[in-house]
């Protein structure tokens, strides 16, 4: 068994909306291991980013309530001071953001932006920092490092910028890399390159990666284990093969059925009925997915669904999966 780098225990992230707190992430427990890609998938708004940002405390403290524990290197990050977190951010945990267009400071050369985290986490000399930066640029596949060093973000293409963002995240060889939709804004060809880059980095640096995405294709390509999130909860957790071959939770199965597949084309796609309710209207009890599979009888749901291990390392929430079928008679589990 690989060593774990991050343990999330019963994490609850709540946001204040008009004087009341609503949980966007509800009782999530996860472990990321060394040299492993743990993917989190789910529809927009299900709380993926909220989860990721809470790990290194990037939510605005005055509007957010964090409960549970995020244990990293034996410390609960949720209780750390900002100063202490700053020692970890960028050094032990790197983060990659979705939109490379806005994630970089438009007024700083990319070289300086990469170097910046070394300023606070290392004692390297100026020249050493520069060398390390050039090395990193090379590493993330920037063709002309010393030239690019002095470039400003707007002078680079989207793919290049995303590489810079990755370079920033891996500057200090972090033990954990959080990648929030790292390829969503990119073209497929670039996406393929970035996926490969991340994969290589993971292997070389022995890093644990928390990959957040809504693209099942990316998951299939990159992940070792997958957590499927719905409405703030994890509904299914399994390794990638299991999940793609034996998905159990109705949500996972519906999701897989709704994407046009290159391999097995079909005339009509599966449609998940209804919509994800907004944060303020989420059902807080019972199976949160029940309204979207209305043809499954209420009684088939657990009153208090929990995530349980149905086979080794395959966790599913609620018992409804045992009774689930596609109304159009689609594929069988």
């Amino acid at each position, binding site marked *: 068994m690989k060593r774990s780098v991050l343990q999330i225990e019963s994490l609850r992230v709540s946001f204040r909306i008009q004087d009341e707190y609503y949980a966007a992430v509800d009782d999530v427990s996860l472990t990321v291991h060394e040299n492993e890609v743990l993917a989190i998938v789910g529809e927009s708004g299900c709380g993926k980013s909220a989860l990721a940002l809470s790990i290194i405390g990037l939510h605005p403290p005055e509007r957010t309530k964090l409960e549970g524990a995020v244990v990293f290197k034996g410390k609960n990050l949720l209780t750390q001071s900002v100063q202490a977190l700053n020692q970890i951010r960028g050094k032990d945990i790197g983060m990659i953001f979705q939109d490379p267009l806005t994630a970089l400071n438009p007024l700083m050369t990319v070289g300086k932006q990469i170097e910046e985290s070394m300023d606070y986490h290392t004692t390297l000399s100026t020249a050493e920092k520069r060398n390390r930066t050039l090395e990193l640029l090379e590493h993330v596949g920037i063709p002309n490092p010393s030239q690019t060093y002095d470039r400003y973000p707007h002078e680079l293409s989207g793919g290049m910028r995303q590489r810079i963002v990755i370079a920033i995240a891996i500057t200090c060889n972090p033990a954990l890399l959080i990648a929030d939709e790292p390829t969503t804004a990119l073209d*497929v060809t670039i996406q393929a390159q970035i996926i490969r880059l991340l994969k290589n980095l993971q292997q070389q640096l022995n890093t644990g990666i928390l990959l957040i995405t809504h693209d099942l294709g990316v998951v299939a390509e990159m992940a070792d284990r997958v957590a499927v999130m719905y409405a703030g909860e994890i509904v299914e957790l399994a390794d990638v093969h299991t999940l793609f071959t034996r998905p159990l939770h109705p949500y996972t199965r519906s999701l897989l059925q709704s994407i046009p*597949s290159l391999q097995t084309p079909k005339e009509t796609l599966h449609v998940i009925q209804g919509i994800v309710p907004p944060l303020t209207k989420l059902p807080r009890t019972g199976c949160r997915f029940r309204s979207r599979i209305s043809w499954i009888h209420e009684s088939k749901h657990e009153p208090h669904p929990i995530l349980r291990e149905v086979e080794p390392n395959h966790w599913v929430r609620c018992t409804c999966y045992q009774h689930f079928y596609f109304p159009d008679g689609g594929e069988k589990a």
Partner: protein
Amino acid sequence: MTFLRVNQLKVHYPVRGGFFRKVIGHVKAVDGISFELKKGETYGLVGESGCGKTTTGRTIIGLVKATAGEILFDGKDLTKLSRREFVQYRKDIQMIFQDPYSSLNPRKRVLDIVAEPLRNFEKLSPQEEKRKVQGLIEKVGLHSDSVYKYPHEFSGGQRQRIGIARALTLNPKLIIADEPVSALDVSVQAQVLNFMKDIQKEFQLTYLFISHDLGIIRHMCDRIGIMYRGQFVEEGTKDEIFHDPKHIYTKRLLASIPNADPLRRQEQQKLRQQIEKDYEQLYSRYFDAEGRVYPLKRISETHSVAIP
């Protein structure tokens, strides 16, 4: 049966600079493309971001002026028409927009949104108008009471249906769909795509379907054109493109698609590396000195490739 024919279409955007806002160059957004649509088919336009897909679509519907070339619709060259003359073709060509949020005016009720074309072209009494709009709204699967709501009260998928209802109001023959689902969540995408397929049959529509998602293109289209920097690199039927790609660029594009089967991850990775290598090695064979593609060459009845 040729329905719409695009002939050597060019759209060059002037790039202005300096303080006198002089034209200092041109972006060749579309640079001499030709293709034709047959009645009732779905023609897919694929390519990387910025290759000119949207521009092509918008030029056909008259939102962008063509720099050169012809767009023959029912034998009439749309690029030669004045604004006024164009109006009558408006009814025949409609568009579905990418972003269901910005394509509906947030200040208008669904009724007003869907009735807008009716008010422009047909003089109907308010009752008739409402009946017609409600009919359409029901057709796209929404409750007829929805006509009194505002767009923000709908989900993305529902909004996109409203957009489609609006496009259908005048019984168009051709619908240009510019990335109709790319702003939607996976779970909602399916809904819209299915629906588009349904109404195509019902209304005998022809689609020009623009997307960068090859999965969706494959799901939807009969014939496909691959664009690269304002030009076509390959054109063919769905099977030809997906099973027998000829141009290295097409191959690379196809190989980049993430494989939904985790078991074949390694395989896919290898294939990709191979093609990437080929791409670099064979680059000069497929692209000219300026990095532009060659004119299309017909290699079968339906299949053309840009090779020298």
